[in-house]
């Protein structure tokens, strides 16, 4: 017999709407808008209202998947990141830096987006960087 609400920020776009996740007996069961939040003033969009749904979904990915022989196979983080790095290096070396583009996220922090920009411009060597809000 346990019900509580946890104040958080909507995980989707960059607006930063305030919301509460409802937790019942240890499971996230619902979302409520924060009614006097200075940004969202009690409103949410359909994504925010359903933000709790993926939390306990059995379909949720918990391990990285790497394609092997045309099939997605569970892999370790080291293996997955190693694969991404080696493939990006191969594509860049073979077709030039402008063959790579990077799409970051509006929900990341400024600092994360700054680092992504550094990686794209200084390491990969292209100006092809944008964020999801301009998709």
């Amino acid at each position, binding site marked *: *017999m346990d*019900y509580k609400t946890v104040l958080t920020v909507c995980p989707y776009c960059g607006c930063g709407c305030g919301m509460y996740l409802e937790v019942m007996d240890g499971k996230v069961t*619902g979302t409520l808008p924060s009614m006097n939040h200075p940004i969202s003033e009690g*409103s*949410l969009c359909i994504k925010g209202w359903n933000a709790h749904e993926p939390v306990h979904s059995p379909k949720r990915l918990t391990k990285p998947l790497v394609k092997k022989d045309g099939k997605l196979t569970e892999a370790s983080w080291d293996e997955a990141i190693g694969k991404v790095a080696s493939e990006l290096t191969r594509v860049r070396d073979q077709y030039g830096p402008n063959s790579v583009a990077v799409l970051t996220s509006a929900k990341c922090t400024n600092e994360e987006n700054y680092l992504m920009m550094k990686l794209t411009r200084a390491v990969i060597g292209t100006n092809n960087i944008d964020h999801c809000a301009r998709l």
Partner: protein
Amino acid sequence: MEELKKKAKQALDEGKIDGFLGLKLEGGEVSPFFVTKDNLAELEKLTAPDGRYSLGKILTRIAVKNPGKNIGVMVRGCDERAIIELVKASQLGTVKVEQYGVACNAKTAEKCNCPQPFPSHIDFGEKAPGVEHIELLTRLEGLTPEARLDYWLGQFSKCIKCYGCRNICPVCYCKECTLEDKNLVPGGIVPPATPVFHFIKAMHMADRCIDCGLCEETCPSNIPLRTIYRHMRKAMHDLFEYVPGRAAEDKSPLGALEEGGRLVH
């Protein structure tokens, strides 16, 4: 508020209630919270703030998981009316509800445009006078049907189909919602099918809407939803003298048959 805290604490201590649902103010944010014997100290945060939530709706979720328990709830006028409707619709199961009445102050009553900002029994607060701004309703009722439809089609075109009005509504409890019926409301289109989407909700609200105004408060597009539902409430009153949320004994005329000129349930 201290007295209400004491009353709730005593009831929890004595086992009169197994849990207490109320509102708290923490870090400038108002939220619902639930206190049992395990987190009794939390009760200190109980407050009657400006912000509101559908405590009745949260109560239905707690009730499903905890049959047979006694639950205390802090109720404002609107919460009490919602609970009356939820009891009528058997949404609280075998849970026994103990109500702790809180009267809203004049500022909250004005903000909520609330005609009855107090419950029948008050444990905290002074009765503030009711407020009823119906200028928009009066203006719209004076228009021709065509002009009125034009007005609403314009309003509904702003809808982003967030389902917020349904989600926050204390008396929207159906497991299967007509608003998600793909035959009536085709998916993937914003604004949703107009005016069907909003008028389905309005028809379903006719004998249920307790005029809390949370739908309008949460609407990201500022659609004056409450004006439609108030019109429906008025129609129910004029036709059947039925007011949702007034008394648990009242039966909805929409669930009745007419026999020999009178309604039979």
